[in-house]
C-alpha cells in the first residue's frame, strides 16, 4: 500500500497516465469505427446477395432449383462462380427462352445491376471463377495479336471457324459467332466453359494468352474487307454459290443478248 501511494505521487505519473488514456481512447475509437465499416460493406454485399436471391427465386429457381441445386432440366449452379452468371445472363442466354439444343445469345433480360446481384448471390453459394476486372482485361496492353491468332487457330477455330464466324456441332448445337462479343464475356466463356464449350484453364491458356486471343478476335472484327465483299467469311461454299448465281448468270445474260437479233 505504501508503495502504490508513493508511485501515485511520482512526478511522471501524470504524463504516463495521460499517454495511457490517449492510447486507450484512440485504440478503442479505431476498433469501434472499424467494426462499423465492416458492418457497412457486409451490409452492402448482403443486400446485393439478397437482391440476387430474390431475382434468382423469381426467374431462375423454376429450372435451377430453389437452392440452385439443379434438377433434370438445368444443372447445379453451386460452384459455377460469378463469371458463369455474368456470362450467361449478361449475354441474354439465360433465362433460356425455349428449351432447344442450346441457349442463344439474345437481348439480356436483366440490367447490369441485377446481373451483378445475381452473380454475387451465386458466388456466395460456393467459390468459383470470378468476373475478370478491368485491369485483367487490358488486352490492348497485355495481348499480342499474332500470338493470339496462333492460339485461336489451335484452340478455337475448329469450333468457331478461322474468322470466328461460328460453326456446327453435333445434333443441332453450334459454336456461335464471336463478332460483337464483349471482351469480358469472351474471357468468362474461356474460363467457365459454358454448355458444350470446354474449359480453358489458366495453366493451359494463361491469362496473357487469353488476352492475346481477345485482341486477335477484336482485330479480325475490326478488319475491313481487304479483297471485296467478305461473303460471310466461311470459305469456298459461298464463293461457289456466287459463281453459280451472279457469275454464270451475268455471262449467260450477255450471251443471250449477244445472240438475239437486233431490232
Amino acid at each position, binding site marked *: 500500500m505504501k508503495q502504490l501511494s508513493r508511485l501515485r505521487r511520482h512526478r511522471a505519473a501524470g504524463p504516463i497516465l495521460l499517454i495511457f488514456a490517449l492510447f486507450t481512447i484512440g485504440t478503442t475509437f479505431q476498433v469501434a469505427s472499424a467494426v462499423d465499416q465492416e458492418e457497412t460493406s457486409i451490409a452492402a454485399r448482403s443486400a446485393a446477395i439478397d437482391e440476387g436471391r430474390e431475382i434468382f427465386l423469381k426467374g431462375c429457381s423454376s429450372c435451377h432449383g430453389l437452392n440452385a441445386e439443379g434438377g433434370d432440366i438445368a444443372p447445379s449452379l453451386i460452384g459455377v462462380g460469378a463469371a458463369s452468371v455474368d456470362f450467361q445472363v449478361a449475354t441474354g442466354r439465360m433465362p433460356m427462352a425455349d428449351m432447344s439444343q442450346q441457349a442463344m445469345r439474345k437481348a439480356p433480360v436483366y440490367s447490369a445491376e441485377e446481373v451483378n446481384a445475381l452473380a454475387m448471390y451465386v458466388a456466395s453459394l460456393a467459390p468459383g471463377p470470378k468476373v475478370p476486372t478491368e485491369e485483367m482485361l487490358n488486352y490492348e496492353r497485355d495481348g499480342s495479336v499474332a500470338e493470339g491468332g496462333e492460339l485461336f487457330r489451335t484452340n478455337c477455330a475448329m469450333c468457331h471457324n478461322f474468322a470466328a464466324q461460328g460453326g456446327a456441332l453435333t445434333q443441332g448445337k453450334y459454336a456461335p459467332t464471336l463478332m460483337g462479343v464483349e471482351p469480358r464475356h469472351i474471357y468468362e466463356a474461356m474460363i467457365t466453359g459454358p454448355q458444350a464449350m470446354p474449359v480453358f484453364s489458366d495453366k493451359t491458356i494463361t491469362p496473357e494468352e487469353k488476352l492475346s486471343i481477345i485482341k486477335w478476335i477484336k482485330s479480325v472484327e475490326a478488319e475491313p474487307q481487304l479483297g471485296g465483299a467478305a*461473303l460471310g467469311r466461311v470459305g469456298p461454299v459461298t464463293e461457289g454459290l456466287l459463281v453459280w448465281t451472279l457469275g454464270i448468270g451475268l455471262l449467260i445474260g450477255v450471251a443471250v443478248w449477244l445472240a438475239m437479233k437486233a431490232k
Partner: protein
Amino acid sequence: MTARERIAGNVAGYVDDRTGAAKWMKKNLTKVFPDHWSFLLGEICLYSFVILLLSGTFLTFWFDPSMREVIYEGSYEPLQGLEMSAAYASTLDISFEVRGGLLMRQIHHWAALIFMVGIVVHLMRVYFTGAFRKPREFNWIIGVGLLTLGIVEGFLGYSLPDDLLSGTGIRIAEAIIQALPVVGSYLAFFAFGGAFPGVAFIPRIYTVHVLLLPGIFLALITVHLMLVWYQKHTQFPGPGRTEKNVVGYPLMPVYMAKAGGFFFIVFGVTAFLGAVASINPIWLYGPYTPGQVSAGSQPDWYMGWLDGLVRMAPPLETVTFGYTISWNILIPGLILPGIMFTGLALYPFIESWATGDKREHHLLDRPRNAPTRTAIGAMALTFTLVSLINGGNDIIATTFDLTINQMMWFSRIAIIVLPPLAYVITKRLCLSLQRADRDLVLHGRETGRLVRMPNGEFTEIHEPISPEKAWLLTSHEQLAPLELPEYDGAGVRRPAAIKNKIRNRISRSMATAVPKATETERKELEGHH
C-alpha cells in the same frame, strides 16, 4: 488503190509467198458459224483459260513455291513474327505488298471457278442436245478429259499458298493416296518426298500446275477447237437447216466481233468479281500446320461433290490377315468417281449401241425429243447435286437451323432415292412436252377467245402456227427401236441372243416417244375447226 490497201497487200503477199496462207485464210475467214447463246458456253471456258494463263503468269513473278520456314515480316499485322512457309509468305506479299497483287490473285481464282462452271454448263448443253454423236465422239472424250484435268488443276492451284484450309485438303488427298491397297504408303511417300507434310509437295505441284497441266490443256484445247472448226459446229433444227448445211454468220466480220467481244465480256465479268468479292482470304486462314483445322472446311465447289460423297460414306473398313482396305475412302474417293467419269466418257458409244444409230448427226436434238437421254442426264445431275449439297452440310446446318446428323441421313437416303425419281419425272415431262408440241401442230395455238357456235356449242379459237414453227416441232427424227434377232433363219438360237434381247429392250426405252404430227393428220383435221 489507196496507200493503206497497197501496204496491206504487200504484207499479205510477203506472208503468202512463204506459206501459201491466202488460200486457207480466204476459206476460213468466210467460214460460217451458227448463232445461238448456248453455243457461247464453251467460249466461256476458252476465255477463262486465257485469263488463267495471263493472271497466272503475273502471279508466278512473285510466288515462291518453297516450303522452307520463314518468319513473316510484311505489313499484315496479325501474322507478323509468325513462322510460315515461303509459299504462304510470298502469297501474303502478293496480296499486300504488290500493287494489284490481291486483285490478280482474286481474278485468277474467280477465273478458275468460272472455268469449271463453264465446263459443266457447256457439258450439259452438249449432252442434252446430243452434240456428242458421230462424228464428235472424240471431241466429247477430250471434253471429259478437260473436265477431269480441270478439277485436278484447280485443286493444285488453290493448294499452292499452303494455307490452313488448302493444307487440310492436301492432308485428305494424302489419306486417299495412302489408302490405296498394297502401294498406298509407297505412293504417298513418293508424292510427298517422305512423311506428310514434308517439304517437297508444294514445289512439285507447282511444276504440275504451271507447266505440265497447262501444256496438256493447251494441246487438248487446240485439238478440241480444231475438231469443231473442221467438223463445223452443230446447229439447232429449224427452217432451212438440214444435216447437210450450216446456217449462220461468217467468221469475218460478224463472228470475230461477237466472239472477240465475248472474250472481253468474260474477262470484264471476272475482273468485276475480283474487284468486289473476296475469295480465298488466306491471311484469315493462317499458315498450314497439321495440328490446326477450321470449322466449315470445304474444298472449292468443283470438288465439293467428292467431299460430300466422302462425308456420307458408311464407316466400312476391312482388315484381312493384317492388311487394311478402307472402303470408306476408296469407294467415295476413287471407285465411284471412276465409274462416273468412265460412264460419262463412254456415253456416246453406249448410246449409239443402245439405239443402233450409227449415222452422222449435225442437227441438234431438242432435249424433249430424246426423253431417255434427257432423263439419264437429269439423274446424273441429281446425284451430283445431292453430293454437292452434302459437301457443305455443316454450313447449311448452321444457316438453316438443321443438324449435321439430319443432313447426313438426308443425303444418304436422297442419293439413292432421288436420282431414279428424277429419271421418271424428267422422262414423263419430256413426253408431255412432246404431246404439247404435237397438239400445237395439229390444233394450233390456243388464243383464249371463245366463240359460240350456232348450235350452242362453245369452242375456243385456235390460231394455226406458222410453217416455220410447224417445221421446228416436227423436223426431228423418231427412231424405231432395234429388233435384233434372237434366232437365225433355221430357228437356232444365236450366240448373241441374250445381248440382242437386252439391246432390244434398251433401245425400246430409248425410242419412247409421242408420235410427231404429220401433214396427213393435219389435213384430216382441217374440217374440224
